[in-house]
């Protein structure tokens, strides 16, 4: 059982404030991922939870007990570091047993726990080796094993996969997901990679400049981003953002103008928009449609077509707009210079006001939440 609550936690280093009042609850057995660009404070937040840093203000409550001033060693948490931080002079076995020895567990119990974790992580054959005789993925597994044997209240992961090559990262990601399913602990995971966040998390916390931008399940963030930052951060390739202006807003609907004379009609009125307001239209590459016949929303010229076999990415330019990315399924025989007509399905549109806040509109009700 582990329940963690952060209550208006702030952290400053000197005059530089890194964390601006974070409120967050993490429930038992949740897999929460902190995601954000570098320097957003996600690692600092994790270190605050770990007890490796002291918050400047605010409280950290674990299972109803205020642990704000409890040292890291007494919080009962385990952390996997980006650098793995394996003790180089100890064997794999010793690395895993170190925490248990410090906790004063009997030999037999230590041996049993280490053996179990080693077999879970397929490290049985390497127990006598020193970390330098292991390759990246194995070191990573030792670091995870060191956390598992402790049977901690919460597992903390600080960008654990960022030192691995792409292939290994995918494999380890799957292992981590499997591990969470198997041991079912509460996990807090920091990454800058939104794919890791989407695939692993039961809940994602998107951070920017020390503030929570949005908190929710991966699909919630994908389907209903609260703001432009989350909308462009989640999803790969990132969402196309088209600056637009409100041309008409009346009972007939809302008409938006963008680019060089393109318009887009919405059936309903959108929130507080009035004629003349600047705003942004967001549409994900996978939701743009190439229209063969029938009405289209804009015309574009292909700058570059990437054939990936299973899918095709078109990078298109339209007068007055930044480059648009369009994903089409299958193999599309299109090349540079071809003209395409693009359609934006209304129920897939994301609208944002001039400040980047999401505007709810009638069409999105059709989307899964």
């Amino acid at each position: 059982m582990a329940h963690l609550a952060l209550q208006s936690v702030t952290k400053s280093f000197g005059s530089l404030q890194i964390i601006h009042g974070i409120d967050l609850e993490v429930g038992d057995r949740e897999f929460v991922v902190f995601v954000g660009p570098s320097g957003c404070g996600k690692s600092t937040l994790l270190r605050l939870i770990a007890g490796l840093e002291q918050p400047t203000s605010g409280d950290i409550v674990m299972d109803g007990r205020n642990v704000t001033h409890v040292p890291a060693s007494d919080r009962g948490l385990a952390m996997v570091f980006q650098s793995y931080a394996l003790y180089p002079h100890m064997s794999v076995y010793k690395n895993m047993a170190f925490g248990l020895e410090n906790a004063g567990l009997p030999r037999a119990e230590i041996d049993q726990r280490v053996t179990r974790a080693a077999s879970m992580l397929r490290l049985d054959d390497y127990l006598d080796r020193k970390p330098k005789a292991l390759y990246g993925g194995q070191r990573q597994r030792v670091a995870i094993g060191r956390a598992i044997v402790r049977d901690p209240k919460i597992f903390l992961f600080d960008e654990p996969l960022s030192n691995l090559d792409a292939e290994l990262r995918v494999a380890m990601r799957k292992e981590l997901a499997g591990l969470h399913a198997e041991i079912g602990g509460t996990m807090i995971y920091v990454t800058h990679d939104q794919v890791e966040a989407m695939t692993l998390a039961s809940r994602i916390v998107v951070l920017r400049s020390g503030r929570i931008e949005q908190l929710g399940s991966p699909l919630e963030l994908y389907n209903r981003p609260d703001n432009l930052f989350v909308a462009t951060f989640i999803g790969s390739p990132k969402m196309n953002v088209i600056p637009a202006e409100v041309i008409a807003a009346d009972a007939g609907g809302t008409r938006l103008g963008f680019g060089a004379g393109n318009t887009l009609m919405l059936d309903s009125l959108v929130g507080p928009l009035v004629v003349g307001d600047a705003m942004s239209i967001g549409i994900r590459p996978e939701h743009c449609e190439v229209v063969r016949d029938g009405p289209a929303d804009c015309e574009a010229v292909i700058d570059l077509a990437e054939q990936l076999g299973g899918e095709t990415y078109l990078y298109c330019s339209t007068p007055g707009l930044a480059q648009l990315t369009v994903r089409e399924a299958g193999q599309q025989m299109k090349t540079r210079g071809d003209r395409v007509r693009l359609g934006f399905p209304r129920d897939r549109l994301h609208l944002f006001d001039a400040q980047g806040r999401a505007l709810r509109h009638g069409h999105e009700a059709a989307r899964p939440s």
Partner: protein
Amino acid sequence: MSVTSALALRRGRGRLHWTDLASYAYLLFGVVLMFGPVLWLTLSSFKTQAALLEFPPSLLPTSQREISVPGFDKPLPQFNVTMDDGSTRVLAQARRIGLQAQMIDPAEPTRIIRVALDKRIPLRETAFAWSNYTEPLKQFDFMRYLGNSVFVTVVATLITLLINSMAAYALSIYEFPGRNATMLGIIGTLMIPITIILVPVYLVVTWLGLVNNLWAVILPGAATPTGVFLLRQYMLTLPRDLIEAARMDKASEWQIYARIVLPLSLPALAVLAIFSVMWRWNEFLWPLAVLSKSESYTLQIGLNAFQGELQTQWNYLLAMTVITLLPITVVFMFLQRFIVAGIANTGVK
């Protein structure tokens, strides 16, 4: 690389370049500069007191050849004698009277030949005066001094390693206000030479009742700023993640110090150990000040006893100096690779 191939190294693949010659000349100069005195010391340690004071000095230990002649109790010194007829003969000198020497031919010991002093040249041979080594080992309480020196060196080095590493741990692993100022203060004490604090430290030692006690030699120098600095710089390069991982692993500060930081600082500790052994073994001024009874002398102070006010027994002094050099040479031979690796690793990453 073997020694021979190392000695044959050249700049290019082709002929000997002039820079090769210059390099080897320079290196040879270095070897002579470094090893010349040691070689001179070692060879001289086998000379008799008389041979040491001889002028011009000889490189090899030599002494006059002697021969036993029937009818004489002691062996007689041998000379090359130029006879009146211009021939030379090897004769033994029975006795000297004024400017004349009474010489005899060992083949017919009854006939005495009178020879002027300037007509004879001593017959020399290379001879090692082993007594330089054996005599002091009997008279001079060598084993006791050696024991004292070993005790001081070993105990002082252990204490130095222990407290310097603890200080370095505090100054590198902990972050606290004034950390750098403290470090600067410690480094600053390097600028105070021992001669300045000799008297005050002596007073403290007297007050503690430690005069003539080996602990008086060990304790005052146990914390060396050089050691703290060396270890701290090394510990600063240890990844912080390791320390934090250990904290997460419920390790106490003692456990982090003893089980993580110390084992990982072994190269730096080895360097400090070598330095400490050399400092302590060769330490002279401070032990001379606090040790006045011969039973508490260290080797270096014991050696000083050969140097009297009126007369210095150079032959014994040199021989014992050679013996004193041996342990430190052996220690250095085994640990020198740590010095290179350790010094390369200390300092900034």
